[in-house]
């Protein structure tokens, strides 16, 4: 763990990890390590998922029926467990995305109030 990157790293907001995992898997099946890397790179190294949270989250999502898993050989010729979004998972993702954007808008309005009146 490089100290430099740790300083600017953000804490994940409570409850957002599930959404990020679902979102990452929208691009196709991926293994745990790949999901962690994807979140990290796509957030421009701002977010880092601890494996201690990632794996419980993956299994929880699978238990709820939003993910499915199977063992496969990776492109790097390595056996790994791949997670795939189910149709229930897709529906859940769009629900969470809606909720998230509402939350962002709401918090945005409070933090940066519009100059006058409402739309």
């Amino acid at each position, binding site marked *: 763990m490089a100290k430099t990157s740790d300083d600017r790293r953000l804490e994940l907001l409570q409850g957002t990890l599930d959404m990020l995992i679902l979102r990452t898997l929208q691009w196709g099946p991926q293994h745990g390590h790949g999901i962690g890397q994807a979140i990290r790179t796509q957030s421009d190294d701002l977010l880092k998922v601890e*494996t201690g949270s990632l794996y*419980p989250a993956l299994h929880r999502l699978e238990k709820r029926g939003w993910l499915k898993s199977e063992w496969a050989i990776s492109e790097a010729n390595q056996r790994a467990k791949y997670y795939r979004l189910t149709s229930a998972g897709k529906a859940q993702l769009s629900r969470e995305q809606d909720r998230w954007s509402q939350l962002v808008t709401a918090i945005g309005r409070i933090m940066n109030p519009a100059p006058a009146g409402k739309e």
Partner: protein
Amino acid sequence: MRRRNPGLPRINDLDDEIRAHIALSVKERIERGEDPEAARRAALKEFGNVALTRDSMRAVWRPRWFDMAEALAHDIRIAMRSLRHVKGLAITVVVTLALGIGANAAIFSVVRGVLLRPLVNRDEDRLIYIRQSGPGIGSENMTFSVPEVNDLKSRVRTIAAFGDFSTVDFAMVGLGGEPRMVKAGVVGGSFFDVMGLRPVLGRLLTARDDGAEAEGAAVLTYRFWSTALNSDPSVVGKTIRLGERSATVVGVLEPSVPYPADTEIIANVVTSPHHLGATMVTNRTHRMTELFGRLAPGASLDAARAELTAAYAAIVRAHPEAYSAKANVQLKVARLRDQIASPARTILLVLLAAAAVVFVIASSNVANLILARSVRREGELAVRAALGAGHGALRRTLLAESLVLCGAGAVLGVLLARPLVAMVAAYAARFSVRALEVRVDGSVLWVGAGLAIAAAVLLAYVPRLPSPNAPAGLGLASGSVRITPGTNRRLRLFATTQIAFSFVLLAGAGMLVATLVTMQTASTGYDMRHVLAFDMPAPATGVGGAKTVDFYREATRRLEALPGVEGASVASNVPWRDPGFVTMQFVVEGYRAADGEENPRARMRIVGPRFFSVLGVPLLAGREFTDEDRSSSELVVIVSRSFAQRLFPNAEALNRHIWWPDSYLGKPAPRRIVGIVGDVDDQHVVQEPAMTVYHPVQQIGLAGRLFVRAAGDPYALVPAVTRVIREISADQPVERAATLEDVRAAVLAPERLNAFVFSGFAGIALLIAVVGVAGVLAFSVSARTREFGIRLAVGSAPSHLLARVVSEGVVIAAIGIAAGVTGGYALAAIATKFFARVEVPGAVPMAGAAAVLIGAAAIASLTPAARASRVDVMQALRSE
């Protein structure tokens, strides 16, 4: 499927996954150009604590119920701690529930054992019992005669085989001990095969034991062998004397339900000369055989019933002389198991209902206590709700508490059930022999647990939860008790329910006690205390006629010479203990039956000289029999008062003549009435006018029962009486000594037990109801301390407050009683649809039960009332 086994495979799978993760990470780092060893270390470090990850996975895999159970376990720990602060309440609740659960579990065990469990007999559901009854002449079980059995056998195809059984009393000598009378079964060779029973020792009787030429053979019942003979294995092959014949013990029967009679031995036909005689074999109306059958393969019970009924109807048509129209004979076919259970069915179902009522009372009482407690802790619940505890969590807290209480109640109840089962089984054994086999088994636990869980869930839903929207803040701060009209109404409703159900039980118990008291205090016409009755059956050597009469005369003469003996006589019946002969028709000189009316019937009894003075029956006119009445002298009889009054209302009955048209006593001959005695009813415990005709033993020949009138303690005479009889005839059984008082008490035992058992239930119910009423009022008083304080402050007299609270208790009781009366009658109306005979308590037991309940309610409300009247005004006004 995967949820079933959340253990090892998953852990292995996760380890694989972690390993793959690290391998991928290492590979990536190496591709980026890191040193392999450094890459490996970095990857491991980046992954972090593997054990921690594994631990947090477990929480994810755990099924939902596991989390809930864990939360509940936590709640239960808290519940135990919080119940420790209210020990009194907890103990009351646990004991109340234990009584309810224990009673139910015990009764259920007995019901299961008696009514539901299969018999040990092979293919017992193919085993049927056939009975002939004559409802028109009040004969519930007429049994069958041999010609009838043969007719049925030849006409029916749906029964593969018939088994016959008749009961005979033998004077038995052998197998150690004194000569004594034993009850024996006499059976044909097919009996044991039809019944599907096996021997535990030796063999049972078969077809080769049939007929007059076979050797006498006897099988011992298991109970006799295991108790009287200490399971002696060498018993097989021994010879016993049965009356005039002898028999070899060939085997011991396996433990089985003794039906139709609980006998000590079961012998083949040759042992009973009577069974080989012409009367038995050819007389169609000589009925003494019980009949069993085994259904033919493929035949159903209904088919057999139809075929038997049709065959029986044909037999009745063919022999009209043997079946009087008045008797209205009928054939009943039932599965043996149902037949054995049927006498106990009603009483057990009634007991089950009583137990259920006790459970309802117990539950509603507990609900009351819990409700009162939950109102007291409304403040606490409101705080928890305010801190974010959801409804589910609050319910769970309440459920945990009621589970602890009900669990403890169930454990105690099941412990209580053990002795109760023994008691109830001993009680039910009077109605069905199967009750003797009832044992406490696992079903008690299931019933106990089931009831406890039902109660716990109900109780958890009784209290009102603080609604998040309600203005909970008021009580929240002070944590004080606020009683709402709704809660109060519910409390009173539960208390009223208890009173109503208790009333039903109390009135029922009152009815049984009233019946018992009537029976016990009824006058019998006998001198009950001083007369000792013995069974003195025909001696084993088989003496009859004149020699027997001589024996009786000699015996009574020597007995009367004993010190302490005031008189001795013989007779054919010990009152209440012996069934007595059938009533017979007779013809009377000077009495003409109206057209179409049958000749009158009377009971026939045989008595010795001085019988009436020995038993204390008053002689109203004429004389008693004396030693001068002989078989060679004039035939004479003595009649009862009701006989004389009914047949000779305006004239003197003495010196008239009667005849028995039946040839039972030999050739019909006129018999002169020489005496009239007071009415005694030796069959019913509550006396009814009985038309009875007494014959002198000298003119009939056989009596079989000995009566001795004692000056002092009757039982002190027993050894002397036995010695005197044995001096005259060494083989003579003389046994079952009892005063008439004790004979009657033994006959009344079932009534006494009925009254006892129901009084027990009613007592429990009353106790619980009193606790309930007291609890409600105590709670209501403590919640109204302020109100009482104000009343006292504005000048109410303390006695006025006292009366006020007591009257509240009485009102609850009165409403409960009204509900009980209404509900009780409704129940009785429903019950009449299922049971032939439903008794509704009379006015006296009802009024008694009401008085007891009102009184109990008043007493129960005294303590809270006294507290209300002693409220400290200043403190009360400051209390809120």
